[in-house]
């Protein structure tokens, strides 16, 4: 599903590498934590995966496509297959929960009938069946992140990438969010989570990729590296 080979990236020409010779492979249906200190390159890696930026060296294949060679007009279609979850939720606060989730479906040209059918179902999956008409600004942080998760899953993406999804949440809400992500994973969606939340990494015992100053410092199958931090 994701293959990185000798992957390098730097933000400025001749600047330091933010990602330095990364090599890894993530298969369909995996749940992977990407961990590392701030500036280790986690967010940069996610930007590369959604092709917001392109590698300066090496190759990155997502769903079998070499992203450096992907024409710009194909990028929206790549992103429809990747659900994204952000630390700051990135919701439209003046709109309802329903509108925020429907928004991602409208983009793909879905009919309003399909939207009316699918949004309540997804709201149920994230445990907010009665919040469809609530304005996002009236929801708690945990609820907002669940709306973010619902939006990420609405188009049945093959993969979800979550950048610090619990960074702004208390432990109880963090646990809920991780549980929802795990439930998506059980249904077959590949999940990548960048996090600082070591407790969660230890608890879930999933594969962990540890980045250190842009290099791959460890790639452990059962959350062992979390202890090394």
């Amino acid at each position, binding site marked *: 599903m994701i293959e990185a080979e000798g992957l390098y990236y730097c933000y400025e020409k001749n600047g330091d590498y933010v990602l330095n010779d990364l090599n890894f492979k993530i298969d369909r249906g995996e749940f992977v934590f990407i961990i590392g200190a701030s500036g280790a390159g986690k967010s940069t890696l996610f930007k590369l995966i*959604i092709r*917001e930026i392109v590698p300066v060296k090496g190759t990155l294949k997502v769903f079998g496509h070499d992203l450096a060679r992907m024409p710009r*007009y194909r990028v*929206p*279609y*790549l*992103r*429809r*297959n990747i659900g*994204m979850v952000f630390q700051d939720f*990135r*919701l*439209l606060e*003046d709109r309802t929960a329903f509108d925020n989730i429907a*928004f*991602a479906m*409208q*983009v*793909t*040209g*879905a*009919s*309003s009938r399909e939207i009316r059918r699918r949004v309540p179902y997804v709201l149920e999956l994230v445990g907010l069946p009665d919040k469809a008409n609530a304005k996002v600004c009236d929801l708690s942080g945990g609820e907002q992140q669940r709306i973010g998760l619902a*939006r990420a899953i609405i*188009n049945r993406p093959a993969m979800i990438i979550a950048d610090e999804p619990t960074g702004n949440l208390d432990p109880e809400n963090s646990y809920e969010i991780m549980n929802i992500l795990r439930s998506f994973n059980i249904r077959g969606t590949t999940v990548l989570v960048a996090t600082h939340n070591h407790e969660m990494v230890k608890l879930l015992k999933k594969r962990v990729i540890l980045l250190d100053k842009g290099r791959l410092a460890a790639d452990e199958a059962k959350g062992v590296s979390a202890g090394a931090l």
Partner: protein
Amino acid sequence: MPCNGFFYAWGEALRSLNRNKWMTIASIGVVVVTLLMLGGFMLVHLNLNHITESVKSQVEIVVYIEDTATLAERNELRERLVAHSALAEVRFVSRDEALRRMKEKLGDLVEGYEGSEENPLPDSFELRTHNPEAVGAVAEELARYPAVAKVDYGKATVEGLFQATRAVQLVALALMIGLAVTAVFLIAHTIRMTVFIRRREIMIMKYVGATNWFIRWPFVLEGLLIGLFGAILPLAGLYYIYRVSLDWVSANLMFLTLVPLPLVMVELSKYLIPLGTGLGILGSAFSMDRFLRV
């Protein structure tokens, strides 16, 4: 654009106009003010043109015939004038007709000549040129013809008038271009601001896989609607102002003929509506490109 996308784009454009009410009002306001000024200036320009054209079309050359000229000489002169390529109209005015006209104009002052054999006025030809600005040159040429006593065309008045109208037109054109350029900047800037306010929304759309045109369409339609409202309002305002002005002029300055109202409105709509909508569309399409690079 697929059917769903079409309705989505229109719906989104209308919703967004409503959602960002104050920004919408501000944007329309900018378009209204600039197009109102531009339209007002166009009104002045149109009417100045109309007045100078009507004055120009009244400019005549009068060729007075020598009293001593024979019939053959008079006929020859007439033929030469009719054949002259620069002349549009040649009319013979007999001395009797000239006297009658003078009486109509001056009334009692010419009483003494009534029925008199001593009509002091000569026979003449009244001429109109194709190009009013050529009267000077044509008049000079005609003065050299045989049997011509004198050529008259109000030299100083005509030349002064043409110089003045040319100057006024140049100033008007420069001001209109200046105003149009200002309007472009103001509108583009306002729309860039509305796009800037919504950059977060655009960024989220990019993340969930919207194509650039999917994002652009609602903004383009929004720009079109802002431009359209921004053009219709000043048109309505100018209609009212012009109607009142026409009434006032026809009551107080009867000698002045202005361009009729329907003609003015057609002329103004022809420029203001495409200008407003065009500016709205271009402004929104281009000012958002920076935000699409995510």
